[in-house]
């Protein structure tokens, strides 16, 4: 695996857009960054802003058909996407995809899309609003092998391109690039370390994780916090590692039926309710607790070798009830729960 220097990122963008459906984060007319598919003649300069919607929907679709029943048989409806590139994905979201890759390892629909994707990572060199990726080992630099290629901005329009996988190597084959000297990678380390130091103090998050796992947060705490959960599903929708889904059946024109899956949220009261009305998580406190358990519980750490939270801070930004990650962790800190 090699590392290259590139002076004009557009050359790489155009090259990739030739072989892949090209997707990149751009801003819409409101200044809102979001992933968009761009044709070669539409390609815009790379921006390092966190899109409000993460890239998880590229693989785990927000709504998708699983099968069609034709009256006699159930037929699988696997997606058949063309090869595509997600160009310039930040480390938090790449870490989340790495997490989802494990979770959906054996899911044919997820994998049908995932196999077709080239991930080009982007190192962050300044902290983003509400982000705390260093605290949960998810950034600001792209982790090894989480992308096929990594881009690192050296300033003055200069970029490092770091090969991370065979897929990445193949993708830039044919481009004549200048190989970088070893000190370029040292420069990267310096930049990333500097960036990490710019993040505000978030020791309350580290402390909160400890308290959650020590089991000394009483149910009454979660019940109190849960009064503020308006059940909007914003956190689970935007969280890049949330993966719950529901299913439903839709009638087709010809009396066939299709079965669909769609993003669900464990914060909904009906999420676990059974047909008998028995509901193991009828208490809103237990649902809110569950959500944070999924993001910071040691049990998940054992399963995935990391926490479920990648430190993007999207839940904080979108929660109308003010119980996103920073708010909850600060509250845990203030509650003086050790007593």
């Amino acid at each position: 695996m090699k590392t290259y220097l590139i002076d004009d990122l557009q050359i790489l963008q155009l090259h990739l857009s030739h072989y892949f459906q090209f997707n990149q984060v751009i801003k819409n007319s409101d200044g809102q960054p979001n992933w968009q598919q761009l044709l070669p003649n539409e390609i815009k300069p790379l921006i390092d802003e966190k899109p409000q919607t993460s890239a998880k929907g590229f693989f785990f679709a927000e709504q998708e058909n699983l099968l069609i029943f034709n009256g006699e048989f159930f037929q699988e409806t696997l997606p058949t996407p063309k090869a595509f590139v997600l160009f310039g994905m930040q480390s938090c979201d790449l870490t989340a995809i790495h997490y989802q890759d494990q979770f959906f390892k054996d899911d044919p629909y997820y994998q049908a899309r995932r196999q077709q994707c080239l991930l080009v990572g982007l190192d962050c060199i300044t902290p983003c609003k509400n982000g705390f990726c260093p605290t949960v080992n998810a950034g600001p630099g792209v982790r090894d092998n989480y992308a096929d290629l990594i881009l690192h901005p050296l300033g003055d329009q200069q970029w490092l391109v770091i090969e991370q996988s065979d897929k990445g190597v193949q993708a830039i084959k044919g481009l004549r690039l200048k190989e970088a000297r070893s000190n370029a990678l040292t420069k990267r380390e310096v930049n990333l370390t500097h960036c990490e130091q710019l993040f505000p103090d978030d020791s309350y998050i580290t402390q909160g994780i400890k308290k959650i796992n020590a089991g000394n947060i009483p149910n009454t705490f979660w019940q109190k916090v849960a009064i503020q959960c308006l059940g909007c599903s914003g956190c689970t929708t935007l969280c890049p590692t949330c993966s719950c889904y529901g299913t439903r059946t839709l009638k087709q024109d010809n009396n066939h039926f299709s079965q669909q899956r769609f993003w669900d949220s464990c914060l909904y009261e009906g999420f676990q309710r059974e047909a008998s009305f028995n509901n193991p998580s009828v208490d809103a406190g237990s649902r809110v607790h569950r959500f944070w358990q999924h993001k910071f519980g040691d049990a998940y750490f054992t399963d995935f070798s990391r926490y479920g939270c990648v430190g993007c801070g999207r839940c904080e930004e979108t929660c109308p009830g003010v119980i996103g990650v920073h708010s909850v962790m600060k509250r845990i800190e203030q509650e003086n729960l050790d007593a």
Partner: protein
Amino acid sequence: MLNHIPDSIELVDYVDDGEQARHYRFRILPSNKGNIEKYQLQPSQQHHWQYNWGKVQPGQFFMLNVPSLGEAPFTFTEAPNKQGEFRAFIRKMGQVTSQLFTMQPGDILGARGPFGRGWPLNTTSSNNNTLVVAGGCGLAPLVTLIDNFVNRLIAQRAISVQTNQESIQEEKQQLVLIYGARNKGAQLLTPERARWHEHIKIFNTLDEYEENKSATTVQGSPLTVLPKALGFFTSPPTIAMLCGPEIMMKSVATSLTEYGLASNTIFLALERRMHCAVGLCGHCYINNQYVCKSGPTFSWQEYQELINISDFSTNFSSN
């Protein structure tokens, strides 16, 4: 890769068991060549059966697909035989079952499975004395297990009759069933219980007072008859299997540990809402485990470990 696609099954027939419950018989349909061509089936759909229907263990479940409405999990009361026929006991509860109750023999549905971890395998085949405690329709997941036991007993008797020997086996291994229900109307699986009646000891309990209850029925919960049931064993049971409302299972399991049963020899089968049955959709979570995959059967020890981290047991629905 996981397979989310059901096999087609045919509704063969059904028998009512009370007003809101039925014993259904289904048959798994083979895919034939004509259909493969007609519908241009994917290679994965061309197998005779897509699932391991021949390897169903007691306590495992399948996802029944009612094509116009969707899927729900059910347990087998009889595992698929060589012809692909199997049985399930189904109560009319939600939308899927309500639609099922309108369907007729010959109608086509779907099934995926078997899924999950059933009752511990080695138990009924070894010389364990087994206590089974079931509440309401919680008896359904235990049917194949008890049937297996009873069938073996009958077979052993036949052998001992043939060989003119006193059955030593029978003496050695006992199975006692405590069956609790809210009232007489809630006592289900009548044909099964009738079938077992002369082979195993059954204690019945009813929560509500009934005028004309039979001599074998006690008013109260399964806990009420627990001492009596335990006393019935010639040597104390070494394994207990529970299925019913979670709150009932918890109290029985707690009580059994007080009687000296180790918490890794008490097993509970849990009920949860499920959509995928393969550990993805998330609906059946308990802590970091999914009941569809790690369960539905858990040892009391495992269950306590899971619940301790995520317990919020106080709620209205357990009233």
